[in-house]
């Protein structure tokens, strides 16, 4: 057994305090979060100042880093409000901020010594650009998703700066930060959090004068990135951090991604390879979460025609989240906050923080007052019989369509 000397960080999305806890408990080495302003996910719950304090404390107690996104392209009036927030972030000891705008970089550096990571929104794609941002004070570059791992590794060596790459999740089809469809067609600034996802629309394409040449296609929609099989290249190229997209996505998504990728890298750390019997299980886990078709996009070779997701958006994945374990003890049983209804007798899976998941049949469902329940309802609490290994914050999932 050869232990690995270098393993990248797994950086997971945390759209809310609950999701932060989920990502941390399921193995993420770092999480990225947004405050109420200055980020790109306006519709996400995001964190209040008190939640940021709690989130940083929760993560740091478990050795997990917290990065705060300040990656909007801010206008002057937005920028005026930034110094106070930056000082607050410094006071609560966040580990880095993620920034795409030079004005924000300068403001952060003027008012704090928080490390600055350059967001993928800045579309940093080459060594020369990385050198520029390093001169501006950046300590890490989240490179554009158009780069191959090999190219990014070269930048890492030559510029001597930390490199972060996306390993999983939805992808902009456009160069990040270079799409203003929402701005000009819907009056919502996509680079300040108002993206309307026009690239996911179906378009009728008029190919020429002949009207019969019209074709209908989701031609601007990208498949989702999945980089599990590229992990060896990430490691050999020295990529410092592997980022999972998706602050707007579900608790189940945050849990599954954090668990799978951290387990894979833990295996590599111990063995120096990925020849694990669990590899197939990890791939199956990734397939169970709602997703578009997967692609390796440009991680190995430039994304080709097969990276286009020419299908209608479909939220159905193989499995869906049934609920969250609120408490588990022999006395209380497994108390679950139900998110999606399930019936007595349904097959459930509890996503453990590490290792194999726990299967159970919902044969005995009780409400909090200990009355039997035949069909659960969303936004209620129920009890299932206790099983060892089940803990609070673990997620419960059910197979879609099997109800």
């Amino acid at each position, binding site marked *: 057994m050869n232990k690995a000397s270098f393993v990248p960080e797994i950086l997971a999305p945390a759209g809310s305090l609950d999701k932060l806890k989920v990502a941390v408990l399921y193995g993420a080495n770092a999480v990225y979060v947004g405050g109420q302003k200055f980020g790109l996910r306006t519709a996400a719950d995001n964190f209040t100042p*008190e939640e940021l304090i709690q989130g940083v404390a929760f993560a740091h107690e478990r050795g997990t880093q917290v990065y705060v996104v300040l990656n909007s392209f801010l206008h002057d009036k937005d920028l005026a409000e930034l110094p106070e927030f930056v000082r607050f972030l410094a006071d609560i000891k966040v580990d880095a901020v993620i920034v795409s705008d030079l004005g924000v970089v300068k403001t952060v550096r003027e008012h704090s010594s928080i490390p600055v990571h350059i967001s993928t929104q800045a579309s940093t794609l080459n060594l020369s650009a990385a050198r520029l941002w390093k001169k501006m004070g950046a300590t890490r570059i989240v490179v554009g998703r158009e780069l191959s791992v090999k190219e990014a590794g070269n930048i890492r060596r030559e510029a001597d700066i930390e490199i972060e790459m996306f390993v999983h999740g939805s992808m902009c089809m456009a160069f990040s930060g270079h799409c203003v469809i929402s701005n000009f067609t819907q009056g919502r600034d996509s680079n300040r959090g108002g993206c309307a996802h026009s690239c996911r629309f179906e378009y009728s394409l008029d190919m020429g004068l002949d009207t019969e040449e019209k074709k209908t296609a989701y031609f601007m929609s990208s498949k989702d990135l999945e980089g599990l099989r590229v992990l060896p290249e990430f490691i050999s190229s020295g990529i410092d951090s592997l980022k999972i997209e998706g602050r707007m996505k579900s608790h189940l998504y945050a849990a599954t991604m954090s668990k799978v990728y951290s387990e894979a890298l833990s295996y590599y750390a111990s063995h120096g390879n990925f020849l694990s019997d669990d590899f197939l299980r990890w791939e199956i886990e990734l397939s169970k979460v709602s997703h578009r078709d997967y692609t390796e996009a440009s991680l190995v070779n430039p994304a080709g025609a097969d990276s286009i997701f020419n299908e209608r958006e479909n939220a159905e994945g193989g499995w869906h989240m049934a609920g969250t374990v609120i408490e588990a003890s022999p006395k209380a049983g497994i108390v679950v906050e139900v998110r999606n209804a399930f019936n007595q007798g349904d097959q459930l899976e509890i996503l453990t923080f590490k290792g194999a998941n726990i299967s159970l049949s919902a044969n005995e469902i009780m409400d909090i007052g200990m009355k039997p329940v035949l069909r659960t309802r969303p936004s209620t609490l129920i009890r299932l019989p206790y099983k060892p290994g089940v803990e609070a914050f673990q997620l419960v999932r059910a197979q879609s369509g099997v109800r």
Partner: protein
Amino acid sequence: MKLTTFAETLHDLNVAREQGLSEIILGHKNISRFGKLSSEEFFTLSNRARELNLRVIGEWDILMTENTFNLSYPVVTSLLSGIDVLRVQDPGAFEWAITNTQKPLQFIAENGNHNLPALQGWIDHAQGRMDRIVLSIELSRDVIAEYIQKLTVPCELLGLGRILLFYTPRALISPLAPEKLKVNEEISVLGSSEESPHKGFPILENRHGTFMFHIKEFCLLEYARDLAALGLGFFRIDLRFGMQNFQSEVMTLSSHFEATAFDDFKAKYPQDFMRGFYLVNKTDVLFPKLKNHRLQKRDGDFVGEVLDAEKGSHLAIMIKNPKGLKATDKLRILHPKGEEFDIMIHSLKNLSLEEVTEIPVDQMAIIPFVNGVWVKSQVFYL
């Protein structure tokens, strides 16, 4: 205020000279997003431009992955003798040009860069070699006016031309029409979606990727005099994409605007116009509506949220405040519809239904049911 524009032919140069322009922008097909010139054509136009006393701006505005960058900078190097000023957009191109050339530089800051510190930051980084900065068309008049006054180099703004909405290096059209790419170096189509109120977006695929434009063109001709008065350095006219025959007319309108002539021009021009955000940019006003207001108040005296309610039996509250919940606490419960209920806790139980004096953070508190309170209600210390 001076005019600037692109040249793709010798005729374009002659029109520029006739209209009194002092410079011209040339785009080589390998390094300019919409450039069509080969190296030979580039030098032919460059030489002729210099004979006409036109300053030659070489445009290098593609975004480049490391591999593309390594193919591009040798092209730039080979063109330098025919370039008086180098215009770049990729920060990597900017950094390379500062380090590896002596040319004056123009930085295209059209994407983002909506604040003064960013713009001045780029200028400062050029160490005195910044010749001009190209401003975003998303800026409003008042902001443009301020930047013109405060920035230490001349500013340029698009006066007339297509609005680029989307730029990807991926080939998105040719997979749908592979036969078209064999014939042409670029493919142009029109795209419409039932989910968008706008129909007929021009879409172009070329060697650099796929580009989508707005159905209307950006036009500030009627504000040209205003911008000149504000001190704008350069007003850019972009008539590539088949509008070159309007060059003289547009130049005249830019220099000597006349309302009737503009109306005639608008009637003839194949595309409709928009002025974008010139009068006001309100692209952030919808953001508060995107927020879930129920989730807004979660700090200070926030205790937690009701996750389960059984009429006549109990309320289950998930405690989110590190102070926890004590059996002696007084609470205010806020129904999602806004109704408030002030209560004393008479009984506090844990999930094992044991009477307790305190429930810590991240655990569930069971209290007696309160009439009118329902799931998703928020609980605060009173």
